[in-house]
């Protein structure tokens, strides 16, 4: 299921093949954690991936088979389908640094001074 308004790229894709970042967020119905995760991922994408991403939101209660095919264990989970390599970020995405690491937008070994 695609949450209205989120299934389309938020901006015109760059390059011929579509958006650079293809993300899929797996949530569980209308739980607070689901809502938080949607809000957080939108915010992060708008700040860091402006115009370069597409985001699908999938409710695994409605589509359990997609949880199976995407190897989802935890909820919420964002799966970065593209670019390679595939990454999963689990949680309500409140830790922005971890999300950026997961999206390969920030190197993993960054230690704050």
């Amino acid at each position: 299921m695609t949450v209205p308004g989120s299934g389309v790229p938020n901006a015109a894709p760059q390059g011929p093949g579509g958006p650079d970042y293809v993300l899929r967020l797996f949530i569980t119905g209308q739980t607070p954690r689901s809502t938080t995760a949607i809000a957080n991922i939108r915010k992060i994408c708008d700040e860091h991936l402006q115009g370069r991403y597409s985001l699908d939101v999938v409710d695994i209660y409605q589509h359990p088979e997609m949880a199976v095919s995407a190897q989802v264990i935890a909820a919420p989970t964002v799966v970065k389908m593209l670019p390679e390599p595939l990454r999963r970020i689990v949680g309500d995405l409140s830790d922005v640094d971890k999300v950026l690491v997961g999206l390969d937008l920030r190197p993993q070994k960054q230690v704050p001074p």
Partner: protein
Amino acid sequence: MTERGYAMPMRSQDTGRGAAVRSFLSKSPPAAGRSRLPKVLTGIEGFDLITMGGLPAGRPTLVCGGPGCGKTLFAMTCLVNGASQYGEPGVFMTFEENAEEVAANVASLGFDIAGLVAAKKLAVDYVRVERSEIEESGDYDLEGLFVRLDYAIKSIGAKRVVLDTLEALFSGLGNTAILRAELRRLFAWLKVRGVTAIITGERGDGALTRHGLEEYVSDCVILLDVVAHEQVVTRRLRVVKYRGSAHGTNEYPFLIDDQGISVLPITSAGLGHEIDEGIVSSGVPGLDAMLGHNGFYRGSSVLFSGGAGTGKTTFAGIFADAAARRGERCLYFAFEESPQQIVRNLRSTGIDLQPHIDAGLLRFEASRPSTYGYEMHLARMNRDIDAFDPEVVVVDPLSAFRGTPTEIHNTLMRMVDLLKARGVTALFTRLISTQELHSGTDQGISSLIDIWIVLTDLEIAGERTRGVHLVKARGMNHSSQVRQYQLWDGGIRVIAGAFSGHRKPSAAPVLIASGKPAAKPKKSAKKSRR
């Protein structure tokens, strides 16, 4: 241990071989007036017996053990049996191997995973947990897992679920506090769903499982173990805990081979077996005559002991031949010679076993005693006996087993028990030296044996002469003479009448002149006629 079986009231009805499990289970379903924990059969030979009916229905069971101890096979066997034999579809959720690997691993046991999946009797979901892919950011739960499990259960109406091995989650996700809370929720959820679940767990240091799953799964805990002793590997199973149910508490040997898993329910055997008054011929008329009833009681245990070259295997082979001629099935456990060798050697005494093998009445199971530990041998014999359902069993020779007298005694006791429980007439052979015969090292074994026949090899006037006598024959008015016997191309000929040896080989004294036993004058004159 001396009066095995004979304290029981005599009943002449057929004991129904292979009936230990069946008869037990027929007695064990909910007795009137006592509500018992509902259970589901695993279909694993022996396990359902020691747990008195299988796993707790609708509840989770933890199966733990070290690497390679057979956890996955155990769980898979319960699942496949449930799906194919008991009409209970099952979900196999694996965290370690993908569906193809799982199917390949159990294909050797004859499990057709693909077929069961196609028939909607089985669902396999491979949960891949890859640490390097996962980043954790904020709060989460394992709802994805719940959704997948629920989806799999609903897709086939599953009654059984296997989670193999949940602990893989701990290596993939870092927040153990969340994991623990979620696992607790998972087990509660499984109970609410009313599925019979098997959760496997790797054994940890000083704990049953590495991540303490036993804290959550408290209904039934089964521990599997592999022990190597003098390069011989024995697998053991123990029911650590079974809430609300009695269960066997020992460590039970179990076996994994091409026929699946079987557990040997040692202590389930006892002295409660029914007994039979029918007579089975030894195949040697002269020996039958010595026994007083023209043979052995059906269901008794017979030991032939003697020195090298006294013809123990010949006696055993003739016994097997006689059984097959009566149309009975005979299972021959050969521990020293190959079946071909035994068949060939017996031909020299005019006995041809090959037609019986071809007719499916005689089956050889040959293995070196050192191949397995005692318990594995027992488990294997138990399984073979269940499968072949023989009337007659030969173990040739017992002496091939080396070990402490206690070990041998225990092994023999269990062997005798499992045969008696099925009403099988068993013939054991045992090689002993003359010194052993006189020093009485066989005494321990004697208490387990109903009929003990000693073969001796004496040199008289430059000629080897063989003598046979009965040390004991429970419940039989037997001859106490030492009689001479010969092996010839027509079998074994026992020459009637006591023969005079220079060295009397045992405590059975013989009055040569009259043939009357001196030591037991109370025995009737009937004896002297034999």
